[in-house]
């Protein structure tokens, strides 16, 4: 556990000192909140900002999580990984450190976006909703980071990784319930959206403001995250020995 935190602290330090990267990742979700959340004329809700904010928080986590693998890719390309693998600390700590770092980074970015949503006039964020949102985002973020770090084990260069990342992120977001409720979607989209884990995370946050909460979705996300974590450890062990 100690080694996980050591790797985590290294990545955190490097990330925070990268100043530009810290802020640039926030531009896209902030733009969604401002230019879509405030501007889009909608008929199904009085406050589109309140509707879209959970979706944008999950989007923030989605991009942060999918970005997580690139950190591992660079460690691999630049020779850090080989140095770490020759250390006596448990090798899986490298992987868990990355997953933890990616998830926490996503939570920090989501916090800024949540603050921005409140400043723009979102009213749904009661203290208990904020706590629940963090829980959902943590589970969702762990799932994505485990997935993206596994992906990074197999992709050879950063270009390939960025391509796969772009290929997955956008469709996952647009086929979710982020931008509109199921009953305004065309039936084909609604059918896809109901099975998209991105929707599950968004629906969980929305439902907490307007119960009942679909606890089965939360359970499904937790199980998915655990399974993905197990797959990720297995792959990591196979690739590094």
């Amino acid at each position: 556990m100690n080694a996980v935190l050591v790797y985590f602290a290294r990545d955190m330090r490097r990330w925070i000192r990268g100043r530009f990267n810290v802020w640039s990742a926030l531009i896209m979700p902030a733009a969604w909140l401002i230019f879509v959340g405030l501007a889009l004329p909608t008929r199904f809700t009085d406050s589109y900002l309140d509707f879209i904010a959970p979706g944008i928080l999950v989007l923030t986590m989605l991009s942060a999580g999918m970005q997580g693998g690139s950190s591992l890719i660079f460690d691999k390309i630049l020779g850090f990984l080989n140095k770490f693998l020759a250390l006596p600390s448990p090798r899986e700590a490298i992987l868990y450190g990355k997953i933890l770092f990616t998830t926490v980074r996503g939570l920090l970015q989501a916090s800024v976006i949540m603050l921005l949503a409140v400043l723009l006039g979102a009213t749904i964020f009661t203290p208990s909703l904020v706590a629940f949102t963090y829980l959902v985002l943590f589970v969702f973020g762990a799932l994505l980071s485990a997935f993206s770090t596994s992906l990074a084990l197999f992709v050879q260069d950063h270009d390939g990784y960025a391509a796969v990342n772009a290929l997955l992120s956008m469709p996952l977001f647009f086929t979710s319930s982020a931008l509109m409720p199921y009953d305004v979607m065309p039936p084909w989209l609604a059918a896809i959206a109901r099975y998209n884990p991105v929707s599950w995370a968004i629906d969980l946050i929305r439902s907490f403001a307007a119960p009942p909460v679909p606890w089965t979705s939360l359970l499904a996300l937790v199980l998915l995250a655990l399974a993905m974590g197990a797959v990720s450890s297995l792959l990591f062990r196979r690739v590094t020995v």
Partner: protein
Amino acid sequence: MATIEAAGLTRRFGELVAVDDLDLAVDHEVFGLLGPNGSGKTTTVLMLTTLLRPTSGTASVSGCDVVREAARVRERISYVPQDMAVDIKLSGRENVSFFAALYGVPGRDRVDEVLAIMDLAERADDLAGTYSGGMRRRLELAQALVHEPEALFLDEPTIGLDVAGRQAIWAHITELRRRGMTVFVTTHYMDEADHACDRVGVIAKGRLVAVDAPAVLRRQLGGERISLRVDLPATPVTVEGARLVRREDDELIYHADDAAETVPALLAGFAAAGVRVRGLEVAAPTLDDVFLALAGRQDEGGSFDYRRFRNLMRRR
């Protein structure tokens, strides 16, 4: 038992035998593994440092088997790959503290100590991004030394450094040996290996073809090295007792048992062929000559096979 031991160590990548039946014992010395690109140097180091599983054969460090007791091997070694991987956004001290934490070395004293040993104490709190290449390499050595390893593995430690940087690195390596550490180095630079290594091993196409002190290998090659500068075009003449070992543009290098006899014959031969000889030098053979005689020029001829290289990298 020697600190580093290998017996019948073999690694295959598909059809390619990267390391072939390697036997070796290295103990309290600076051992240099020399070989052309792709000869199996790095593969050997990766197996000894538990980063790659041998296909067959065994190896051990301080008596711990590199496969069955990999974790215990990793407690006793340090490995510095050639990539020069230090975190440029962390200070020198942070880079070393990070490794100290992973090795389970408590406190700041040891970190300060290794930084001082590597002459980095004054710049310890500057970001490693402001360090020169030589300083970054010394920082990596500081990281590697923080847990007082029994064996240190260095892959091309002086690659890309200027002369002063190289000398500093070798001075540190020699000092570590003096304190009783076993240092296993791979290098391309023969003159550096000649000066700094107690023994060298020459590896060619995965096979270890010679292991001994550089001076012994040079003596074994024997004879003298005759280097002639000629006007081009020139066909090298053949003379009894002299063997053409190398040709670099207008420089022809012969190897002869007795230069006093063969030099006049060579000069006469070139005169008869109508080739003007502009310069002549007779010297004892260098480690370069030993290396080329043993390892040949493996790199020439076959082109660089990128697909095989990629597969190789993927499998490790």
